[in-house]
């Protein structure tokens, strides 16, 4: 007993918290909070504060460069009675759901196609990711030219196979314009799905397929009962990510259609931008941006809980 207590006492004394400043700084909690204070203060100032300030703005009549006056929920009531606002809501949901489904199905197809041995596999994978890494605005400009009303290369193909001139007006027709932004969003996001799901596929142990084959499972059954269940967690994460950033998409629509024709492609983000920056109504614009919040909060909460790094 006496032999053991000597070194133990030494350790306890050395770790005693208030012994010195350096000892205090060495405590895990003190060290951690001091270390995290600068980034946390930064985020509080430039994310937390603007978020609260945005809520305050949404309760004000606040023309740009003028003082705001408190108007309560007037902006939200205006939104509720505004047919364009409901059009925007419907557009945003249609856009998000359609683009997400296309990316999911197309991404799975891409992953399955790429999950085979073939020469130049890595360069092919690198090229397939290009749409995802190139700045969206710049690739959208290329799409704008592909869909140009007068010189569309797509219509050149269609006319060549017998579609009557001048071919469809991709960005002038409300339905086609919505279809176009959905396809372009899919074009950009699909490689991300595909490559992520491919990584998921590569973690599936081959023994599982062998066992299923021995048990007499067909190719479809192996896919349905082995591949899909094992891909489910990664698919859920990718989908939630994709839904959040498609739901709040701005740049693609701003560049390609500016929300037109007649608000047919107007989304929450572009409509809030038009009202706040175009019409200079910061308060009203903030209320439109905040309309995204309930759906976003649910999605963010779901994803945060799901990908928690414990």
């Amino acid at each position, binding site marked *: 007993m006496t032999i053991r207590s000597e070194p133990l006492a030494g350790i306890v004394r050395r770790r005693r918290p208030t012994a010195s400043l350096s000892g205090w700084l060495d405590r895990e909690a003190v060290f*951690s909070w001091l270390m995290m204070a600068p980034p946390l203060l930064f985020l509080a100032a430039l994310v937390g504060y603007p978020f609260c300030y945005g809520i305050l703005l949404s309760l004000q009549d606040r023309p740009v460069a003028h003082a705001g006056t408190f108007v309560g929920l007037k902006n939200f009531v205006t939104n509720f009675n505004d047919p364009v606002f409901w059009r925007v809501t419907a557009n945003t949901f249609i856009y998000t759901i359609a683009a997400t489904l296309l990316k999911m199905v197309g991404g799975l197809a891409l992953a399955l196609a790429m999950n085979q041995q073939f020469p130049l596999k890595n360069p092919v994978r690198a090229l397939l990711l290009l749409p995802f890494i190139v*700045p969206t605005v*710049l690739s959208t400009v290329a799409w704008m030219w592909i869909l140009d009303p007068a010189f569309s290369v797509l219509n050149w193909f269609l006319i060549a196979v017998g579609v009557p001139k001048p071919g469809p007006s991709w960005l002038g027709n409300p339905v086609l314009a919505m279809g176009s932004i959905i396809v372009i969003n899919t074009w950009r996001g699909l490689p991300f799905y595909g490559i992520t799901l491919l990584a998921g596929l590569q973690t599936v142990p081959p023994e599982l397929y062998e066992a299923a084959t021995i048990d007499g499972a067909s190719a479809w059954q192996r896919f349905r009962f082995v591949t899909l269940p094992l891909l489910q967690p990664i698919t859920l994460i990718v989908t939630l990510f994709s839904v959040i950033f498609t739901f709040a998409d701005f740049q693609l629509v701003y560049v390609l259609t500016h929300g037109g024709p007649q608000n047919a492609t107007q989304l929450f*983000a572009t409509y809030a931008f038009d009202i706040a920056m175009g019409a200079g109504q910061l308060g009203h614009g903030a209320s439109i941006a905040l309309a995204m919040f309930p759906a976003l909060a649910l999605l963010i909460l779901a994803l*945060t809980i799901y990908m928690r790094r414990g």
Partner: protein
Amino acid sequence: MVTGHGPVERVVRLWLPVGFFLIVALFPFYWMAVTSLKPNAELYNRNVMPLVVHHPTLKHYIDLLTQTSFLLWTWNTMVVAIVSTAISLVLGVMLAYPLARMRFAGAGLIAMTVAAIYLVPQPLLFIPLADLINRLGLGNTLSAVILTYPTMLVPFCAWLLLGYFKTVPKELEEAARIDGAGRLQTMRRIFLPLCTPGFISAGIFAFTLSQNEFLYALIFLTKSAVRTVPVGVIAELIRGDVFYWGQLMAGALLGSIPVAIIYSFFVEHYVAGLTSGSVKG
């Protein structure tokens, strides 16, 4: 992994779908390149087969570089991307290290908050931020975006690094602690040098995200001299209803090249970061 047997099956199962995805993914870039090399007479002539260049010219590139501020925008974009990436890596480490290594009350809550902030899209905050930037007198300065890009990059870097840090074994740090090194010293001298791959991954992503950012740059930078490439291209190469398609495509192609080069060097890091399940899509 199921491989096809006959050559026909291999074409149907492999080359048809892979070829289809490749053509769809790359056609817009091919189209950018082809358009940027065509003289206007060919560009706006519907009777010429459009898929190839008949009379290639560099006129659009020369006009872009001499008649617009494209080089200045490229410089601005680089400065903004490099500085905000550096700031974000430093602040990201300051968040991620304690979360990965220390035990303290509230760690779980902080980790969740960081993840949640990382998922907040810019359109939710741009209106109050615009007002804030104006009140700070930062409108039309690069500081406006250098200050705001880290709002999305810091949580992102912290999250990605947190995942990486947890894969690094603790033994070296424990040994350094036993030898009497302080916590800060252990982190800087022992731990951080082990994490270079994590920094490269986070750095490339932060860099490409800053190159890609459009909304804040559009709102905060309204003078040509301070614009970044995406905003400059959209705001100044589209003048009213007149589109300078040759220049636009040249600008889009040149603007994509820095990201593409960085990406081609670090593609394995990029894919590793992508598939760790912590990247925006």
